[in-house]
């Protein structure tokens, strides 16, 4: 290992180290400050005679003449083992819970390799979250990446915790684990999750990586990769079904922008770097199932849309990579509906693989489509009646208007601890269909109306 005391320039989080012959790209370095304090960093650009190093954490106290930089000859790795479960680490993978370091010889690169598309197994197992708006209309399957698009002040944490608590695959035992990565969230939010996992007994099956709002933003770049490396280990080497919660991806993207700006790169939209799509994909694409392996990685990233704007680059690029999205609505939140999921904007791309006969129920697709179309019609009519008055609507239109209200209250709305089975969810759909004329039920097959809907219609 080589040590250098040749820092020639410090610019933002970047150190320029001279006379370095052959630093490896992405190689890890250890920086020793004049006062003996140690920091870590990573090589971002290397050439004969110069290495540009990105420092994790603040650069306070780093000087030119006395700071030493040691190149460790390897890229970033973390130790992985079964002992990770029940532990809390910081954003760089060091213990944060007062416990000792992990005793494991196995250290894995945190930059994950892409899963060969040919090795992937198609995600097709239905995960019952107990939340009707998700199970019924935006079904989650094992190995999917389904983000929550939220806004500041909306109850995304409650929903994520409820999903972590209630998720189960029908007819299977408890070989699951939760990996939780916090990026720039507040101490209070982190405690909410820790307490929730403790109270429900899930803590022993959880690995937490916490980079809080007060921690260095540069570390945020590594935190999700640490978490996903741990998740891949648990899933593909220990056969567990891992649910990964990443929150808040907006903070991650801001850290990415900060580094890009300090490297004086050409900015893309709203100052975010042009490679943000590729960068995010190296996080999100680490969800999935692999042929011949028992475990799976399911991702639940959370992001807050700045200004509730779904066209902002962060939700936009995320939506292009993930397999759908769950969008929260401020309107529903103000109406006191929990969870305030706007089903029209939400989507699960893998839903079809996970539902239907033998998986959920044969009428699932039809019920979901019918709920969408009837609710969309009701919402349109709501806008219309705001202008022309309810009196100008036809009686049939008024039925749809009423349907939309009831649908929001009873189908979307449910308790924070209410765990609905998929049968309850679908039957609730049929119960609501009783409010609209049978001739309008075009999206469901006739035989299903007889089999599942008849008993709710007088």
């Amino acid at each position, binding site marked *: 290992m080589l040590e250098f005391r040749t820092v020639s320039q410090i610019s933002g989080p970047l150190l320029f180290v001279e006379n370095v012959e052959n630093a*490896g790209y992405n190689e890890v370095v250890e920086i020793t400050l004049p006062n003996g304090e140690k920091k870590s960093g990573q090589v971002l650009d290397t050439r004969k005679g110069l290495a540009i190093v990105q420092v994790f954490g603040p650069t306070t106290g780093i000087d030119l003449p006395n700071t030493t930089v040691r190149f460790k000859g390897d890229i970033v790795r973390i130790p992985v083992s079964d002992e990770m479960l029940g532990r809390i680490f910081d954003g760089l993978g060091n213990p944060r819970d007062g416990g000792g370091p992990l005793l494991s010889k196995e250290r894995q690169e945190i930059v*994950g*390799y892409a*899963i*060969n*598309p040919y090795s992937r197994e198609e995600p097709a197992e239905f995960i019952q979250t107990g939340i009707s708006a998700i199970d019924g209309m935006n079904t989650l399957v094992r190995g999917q990446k389904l983000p929550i698009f939220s806004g500041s002040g909306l109850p995304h944490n409650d929903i994520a915790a409820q999903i972590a608590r209630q998720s189960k695959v029908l007819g299977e035992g408890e070989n699951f684990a939760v990996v939780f990565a916090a990026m720039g969230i507040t101490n209070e939010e982190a405690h909410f999750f820790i307490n929730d996992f403790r109270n429900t007994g899930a803590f022993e099956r959880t690995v937490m990586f916490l980079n809080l709002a007060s921690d260095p933003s540069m570390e945020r770049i590594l935190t999700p990769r640490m978490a996903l490396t741990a998740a891949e280990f648990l899933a593909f080497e220990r056969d567990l079904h891992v649910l990964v919660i990443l929150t808040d991806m907006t903070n991650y993207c801001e850290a990415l922008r900060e580094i890009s700006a300090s490297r004086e790169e050409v900015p893309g939209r709203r100052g975010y770097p042009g490679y943000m799509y590729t960068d995010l994909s190296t996080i999100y694409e680490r969800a999935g199932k692999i042929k011949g392996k028992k475990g799976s990685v399911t991702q639940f990233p959370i992001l807050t849309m700045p200004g509730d704007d779904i066209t902002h680059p962060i939700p936009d690029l995320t939506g292009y990579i993930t397999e759908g999205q769950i969008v929260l609505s401020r309107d529903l939140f103000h109406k006191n509906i929990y969870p305030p999921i706007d089903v029209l904007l939400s989507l699960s791309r893998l839903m079809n693989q996970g539902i239907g006969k033998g998986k959920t129920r044969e009428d699932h697709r039809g019920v979901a489509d019918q709920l969408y179309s009837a609710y*969309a019609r009701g919402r349109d009519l709501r806008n219309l009646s705001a202008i022309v008055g309810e009196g*100008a609507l*036809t009686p049939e239109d008024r039925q749809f208007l009423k349907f939309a209200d009831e649908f929001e209250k009873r189908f979307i709305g449910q308790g924070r601890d209410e765990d609905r089975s998929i049968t309850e969810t679908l039957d609730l759909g049929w119960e609501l269909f009783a409010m609209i004329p049978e001739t309008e039920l075009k999206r469901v097959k006739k035989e299903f109306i007889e089999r599942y809907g008849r008993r709710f219609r007088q």
Partner: protein
Amino acid sequence: MGVVYRVSGPVVIAKDVENAKMFDVVYVGEERLIGEIIRIIGNNSTIQVYEDTSGLRPGEPVVNTSKPLSVELGPGLLRSIYDGIQRPLPVLKEKSGEFIRRGVFANALDEKAEWEFVPSVKPGDTVNSGSIIGYVQESQIIKTRIMVPYGIRGAVKDIYSGKFTVNDTVGIVNTTNGEIKLTMKEYWSVRFPRPYKEKLPPQIPMITGQRVIDTFFTIAKGGTACVIGPFGSGKTVIQHQLAKWSDTDVVVYVGCGERGNEMTEVLVTFPELIDPKTKGPLMDRTVLIANTSNMPVAAREASVYTAITIAEYFRDMGYDVSLMADSTSRWAEAMREISGRLEEMPGEEGYPAYLSRRLAEFYERAGRVVTLNDQLGSVTVVGAVSPPGGDTSEPVSQGTLRLTKVFWALDASLANRRHFPSVNWLASYSLYHSTIKEWFEKNISKEWNMMRDRAMAILQQEEELQQIVQLVGPDALPDKERIILDTAKMLREDYLQQSAFDDVDTYCSLKKQHMMLKTILNYHDLSLKFVSSGVSLKSILGMKVRERISRMKEIREEMIAEIENINREMEDEFKSLGVA
């Protein structure tokens, strides 16, 4: 031998690379990562590397292959799945496990597989570049025709028949430069279009079985189309539907910077599907290229060229080929990322100034041609564009719209209410209608073009009427206009909407499209006629046959005569309403 001087992400600068020429393929570092020379300044070659460069150090060796980035063409392409630089993914899996590691080399064509070669020339025949010397029956439906590689002409000295691998000699040609041995394999540099004799105007529609496309926004064989839409609007589903049901002989599907699970879906579903035209498995005519978003960005840039070169190869055998590229935006972003690393002066939104030239070069490789061996072949290109925030004023959308003749505008508001395919009928267009008009008149019906125009007119009138309804409510409209609203709703829900996931509705033949459209227009005419003779609108809206019409799409192809019955029932029910 060259050595690495600088590493910055996928861009590497090397010194002293032997005989460095632009676009030479090089092996970089101890791990022999594959790269391509994209700039030469003095002694320094800039290389874009197709694999992750983590751990690469200055001083490591760089070896020049002195060959441009090429694809291997020959029997064995069909049913394959490749990465962006034509490495077969199943072989990568064998060599490096479930994850794609660095520095793995794999031949594109299986060198051990033996193919039955049937010659079609005899000794003494004169052959030219592109001449067909024989074929391999590669699948039930596709004969891979073996052609003389470009630049070779002369007299056949020897030609063999029997089982050969792609490296075995199957013939010998006497040329002015001496004897040349021919194998079934040839190489082509991906950045150069393959030659042809002549380009012809596209005059035959490519039938996709998707009603909104075939009826309203038709694409021609050899034409170009773009499908533009924000995330969740169904771009990928449309591309998959085209790959499944297009009536072309060969389909090349490139997943460029998209999701891994989507490629898996193709791999799982295609082998189970049957081509409605040939009744063979769909996979037998398909070549897949998967360079997912997290695979190296430089290989993503190359993937589109790899795909179109393979498409041109099958075109040159005289086949109709369609190429689906999902998504060209990710390809453009790969260009932007590499351009940024090269510190080039950026154009609009950080994209390189040569973006629109590259787009044009790509779409110009589509076309219906007379091949070098005097056959007719075509490459149809359908590119998906994913505009940031759904805003089509961005450079990739705009650059593409200037080039493609068909535009399918996907609409988030339609998608949100689950109107699929979410092709907006007011914003989309096809410029092929005038050239393929005659084909429809000859093959479907004389009235086809008129019917389409009428249906479109009703949809346009609806849009205008909706604006009035928004102000005064539907009750204020006269009955005639309410009938227009009613028919337009029928067109939207019972004709334009089509479920890709329904066993029957996923594919709709032109014949069925014609019958369905005729029924709806017939209904429209009768409604107008009866309402003007005094029948109440309410009794028309309460007719039983309306439900039968709404379920026409569920009728199986072999039962479509049933639609005639619906027409009869409809006429009877109208008569039972009284007057007219």
